[in-house]
C-alpha cells in the first residue's frame, strides 16, 4: 500500500491494474462522442485491457468527457466518491483544463482539478481517439510507477476539495457518507 517502497505483491498488483482498466464514461460534453470509436472495431481499446463498467462500484477509471455544468459536477463528485480505491480520473478536452470555449460561462466549472484529483488531462477540442489512447498509455505508465494515487490524495486533502466544491455547489451539497467508507457505507 505504501508507494515509496512497494512490495512484490504491490508490484504485481500494479501490473494487473495497468492491464485491466474498467472505464466509466461520464458523457457530460461533446467529447463523449469520441469514446464509442475508441472502444469499437477501429481503435479497439480492449487490446489494452480496457472495458466498459456498468456502475461506479465496478469502475477503475472515470472519464469526464468535456465541459461540466455545476449541476453535473455534483453528480460527478458523487460518482467519483462511490468508486473504490484505487481509482483514476481522465479529463478529456480543453473545457476540463481551463474552461475551453466556455471560459466565461456562468454555470460551468473551469478547472476540474480543483474538485476531484485528475490523473491525466487529454487536451484538444475535441481529442481524437488516438489522443485518448495516448492518454490511456500515459495513465498506464503512472499506474505502473505507483503514482496514480488519486484516491489517497483526495482523502488527505479532503478539506480543500470540499471547500472548493462548496464554493460552486453552495448549500446544495453532498452528504459525508458518500466519501467516508470507514464505518462501512
Amino acid at each position, binding site marked *: 500500500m505504501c508507494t515509496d517502497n512497494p512490495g512484490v505483491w504491490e508490484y504485481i498488483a500494479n501490473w494487473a491494474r495497468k492491464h485491466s482498466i474498467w472505464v466509466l464514461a461520464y458523457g457530460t460534453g461533446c467529447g463523449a462522442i469520441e469514446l464509442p470509436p475508441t472502444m469499437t472495431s477501429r481503435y*479497439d481499446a480492449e487490446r489494452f485491457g480496457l472495458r*466498459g463498467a456498468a*456502475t461506479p*462500484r465496478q469502475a477503475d477509471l472515470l472519464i469526464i468527457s468535456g465541459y461540466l455544468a455545476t449541476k453535473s459536477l455534483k453528480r460527478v463528485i458523487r460518482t467519483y466518491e462511490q468508486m473504490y480505491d484505487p481509482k483514476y480520473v481522465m479529463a478529456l478536452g480543453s473545457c476540463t483544463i481551463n474552461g475551453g470555449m466556455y471560459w466565461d460561462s456562468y454555470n460551468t466549472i473551469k478547472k476540474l482539478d480543483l474538485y476531484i484529483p485528475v490523473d491525466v488531462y487529454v487536451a484538444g477540442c475535441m481529442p481524437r481517439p488516438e489522443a485518448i489512447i495516448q492518454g490511456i498509455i500515459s495513465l498506464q505508465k503512472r499506474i505502473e510507477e505507483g503514482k496514480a494515487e488519486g484516491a489517497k490524495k483526495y482523502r488527505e486533502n479532503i478539506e480543500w476539495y470540499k471547500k472548493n466544491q462548496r464554493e460552486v455547489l453552495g448549500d446544495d451539497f453532498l452528504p459525508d457518507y458518500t466519501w467516508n467508507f470507514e464505518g462501512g457505507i
Partner: protein
Amino acid sequence: MGMKILNIVAYPFIAFIVGMLYMGIARNIIGRIHRRWGPPVFQNLIDVFKLYRKREAGSHGVMFHLGPIIMVTGIVSCLYFVPLLNNGVWLKGFSFEGDLILVTYLMVLGSLGMALGVGQGGVPFGVMGVTRGLTRLIGLEIPYFIAIIVLMAHYNTASINKIMELQAGGITHWGMFKLPLAFIASLFSFWGMMGASPFDIPGAPQEVASGPATEFGGKYLALMMTSRGIFGFLKLTLWVDLFMGGAATILILIGKTFLLFLTVLFVSAVYSRFKVEQAVDFMWRYPTLIGLIALVIEMVR
C-alpha cells in the same frame, strides 16, 4: 491420503483456471467477430486478480457480505459431485446413487445466496436483475428437468458416474446420439444457464446496469467472477458427462468442453437479447415440446 487431499484441492483450481481461460477466449473470439484484435486470452484472470487487490469494498451489512460467499460455497460444493474424469482415481469427485438430483438442486443454491445479498444492498437495479433471473429460471428449468428425467429413465439410474459408464464404448453410445431430442431440449437450457446472449436477461448492462452485480465491487465482484468461472466449467463438464460420454483424460475433457463452449459462443455472438417474457415463452414452447416428445418416445420404448 495425501493424494486424496491433493485431489480435492485441485478440483476448484482446475475449474477456475479453465473456466476463466474460456471466458477470456470468448472475449477474444467475439473481438475477432467484430473485426478487431480483442483482449489477450488471460484477460479475465488479470481482471480477477486486480479486483482482489482493490483496497476498498463497501458493504451494506452481514447478508450483503455473505451473498457472494454463499455463491462460491454453493458452486464449489456442487462441483465436487460432478466427476471431471470417468476412470481411475483422479478428479472423480464424490459420487453416490442419486447425485444427479443433488447437483440439480445445488446448481441454484449459488444464485439464491446471491439474491439474499443483493436484497440487502437495496439497489433497485440489483433487485430487478434478481427478479429477471428468477423469472428466467422458471423458463430454463422445465426443458432441463425433462431432459434429465428422460436420461434417468433411459439409463435407469440417477448417478452421474453410472451414466458415464453406460455411455462407454464408442461415439454411438453417447447420450447425445442415443437421446438426440433430449439433448437438443437440454441444450437450450444450457445456453440460457451459461448466460449466452438470447437469454442473458439478469445482468443486461444496457438495461439494468449489470443487474445483481450492480452494488458489488472490489473483492465481492472478484468472488462473483470467480464463481462464474467455476460455474461455467461445472456446467460444461456436467453436460459432457451426461451427453458426451465423459472424458478419460484432462485433454479430452478440455477438447469436449471447448467444443460445447463454442456452440454457446456462436449463439451468443449472433443473437440479440430476448425480453423476459419472450425468453420464458420460447422456453416453454419449443424446447419443452422437443423434450416432451423425447419423453413420450422413451416411455413407449
